[in-house]
């Protein structure tokens, strides 16, 4: 129960935050929220299902382009655009996932990446529809959230809602079935579960939330580019999750805070961002293999908390 108290405090802090920080950092905070949602959706596949999706940007990008195209070419209201982003990403995940869940381990990672790159090249080349490598410009949010502070609260509201839904799923029988498949897929078959079908459902749900995160990005940046779908972008939630910790539900959000904040801070005075994040990853992998959350939990446990990593996850 103490845990919920902490979450309440954090939520109140996020409500007050824009009142005490400057506009630049509000921009950073919006990005933390969007990327945090993207990373948590990635972790539904990585942490809970035990497979590394290295093409998760495909669903993020599909969501971004769905909302972006609708806002540039039609006058559909933003909330509906976001819903369509989720559906588009979900359908894409259903098609790609159908093939990917036949594989596990490195083959799963490679195939998800290959499909992701395929989507990237389609968007990159299809000038007449997607704008090709010029991307899409002029994705202007509606008046009521045109100020960055308002957009921050809008994003906070949607991301919090999405996180709650994903958390409920992770604690449901379906969520535990994912852990079971991660721990021992064969055993799970022998208790009567169609492992591939469940993996596919999870892949689609994760893709939908990635699509929602992508949808939020366009109106925030006022533009999108095909880079959103490529494999560099797929690496971002991987880094965030490794930094934050894959075994706790909020690990990827912590990772997003650290990664995005560091990016905003470091690129302010040096162009050696890849070197910086590389060093951070090396440090985390070598000295805190459970990520920040793993470290906090081990420290916490020595004081006497008895909950298991997974019971808390």
């Amino acid at each position, binding site marked *: 129960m103490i845990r919920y108290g902490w979450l309440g405090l954090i939520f109140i802090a996020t409500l007050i935050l824009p009142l005490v920080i400057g506009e630049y950092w509000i921009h950073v905070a919006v990005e933390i929220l969007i990327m945090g949602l993207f990373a948590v959706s990635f972790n539904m596949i990585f942490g809970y299902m035990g497979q590394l999706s290295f093409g998760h940007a495909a669903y993020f990008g599909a969501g971004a382009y769905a909302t972006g195209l609708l806002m540039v070419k039609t006058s559909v209201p933003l909330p509906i655009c976001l819903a369509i982003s989720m559906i588009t990403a979900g359908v894409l995940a259903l098609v790609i996932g159908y093939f990917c869940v036949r594989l596990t381990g490195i083959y799963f990672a490679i195939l998800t990446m290959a499909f992701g790159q395929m989507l990237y090249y389609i968007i990159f080349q299809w000038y007449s529809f997607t704008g090709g490598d010029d991307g899409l410009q002029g994705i202007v949010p509606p008046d009521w959230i045109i100020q960055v502070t308002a957009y921050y609260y809008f994003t906070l509201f949607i991301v919090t809602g999405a996180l709650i839904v994903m958390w409920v799923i992770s604690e449901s*029988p379906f969520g535990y079935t994912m852990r079971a498949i*991660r721990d*021992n897929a064969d*055993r799970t078959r022998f208790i009567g579960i169609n492992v591939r079908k469940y993996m596919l459902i999870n892949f689609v749900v994760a893709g939908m939330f990635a699509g929602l995160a992508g949808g939020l990005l366009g109106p925030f940046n006022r533009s999108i580019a095909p880079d959103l779908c490529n494999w560099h972008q797929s690496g971002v939630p991987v880094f965030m999750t490794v930094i934050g910790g894959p075994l706790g539900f909020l690990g990827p959000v912590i990772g997003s805070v650290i990664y995005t904040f560091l990016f905003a801070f470091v690129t302010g005075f040096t162009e050696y961002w890849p070197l910086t994040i590389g060093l951070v990853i090396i440090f985390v992998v070598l000295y805190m293999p459970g990520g920040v959350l793993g470290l906090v939990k081990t420290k916490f446990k020595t004081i006497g908390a008895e909950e*298991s990593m*997974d*019971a808390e996850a």
Partner: protein
Amino acid sequence: MAILKVKRLNKAFGGLQATNDVNYEMQTGELSGIIGPNGAGKSTFFNLLTGYYKVDSGRISFQGKDITNWSPHRISRLGIARAFQVSNIYPALTAYENIRQAILAQQKRTLNFFTPAHRLAKKETQELLEVTGLSQHADKIAGTLSQGDKKCLELAIALGSKPELLFLDEPTAGMSGEETHETMNLVKRLNQEMDLTILFTEHDMSVVFGYAKRLTVLHQGSIIAEGTPEEVRKNETAQKVYLGEEA
């Protein structure tokens, strides 16, 4: 009525005939054993019966229904469960969560996205923890349990599927003498009190006597003797290939 019928079952791996023209039948309510030295083909036989391997030829039927080459999850849903020789559990989940998972699957609740899992199947999970003597380990991470307790958990997961037919692959492997006895008594109780048809394998002959009503001796993939434990003990072929080694 025959609950399980196996006709002329064959399975080869490369040049090795792991299952050789096996005919086998079980009646509802039976408690029977398959014995044979390591490598006799016991585990392969179970893997064929539960759909883990595809058969080369032959038929398997359960309660009159042909289940040859069905996938494991479909066979499991019909009411056939198995426990593995090397304990095959969910190491990162607690013992309680391990058992609950099997029960939730049996109750067809695994597509429920919105009810917290900890509110479901409480009574059933507690019952199975008690039956298998794991109550005091309920909240321990399964991977940290002792070998003997892992085997009990393995059995509990199999029971969570509420099977009518249960395959136990060397249920006492790695257990101490006392644990072996407790486990075999539990198997006997499950058979008598819960009306469960059980087939188990064992490589240690002494464990089998007193429990199985019928024994089948497997050697190099073939059945070489069958009968009551007494008959098998007296059988010359069985003595030669198997019992002789033990004495």
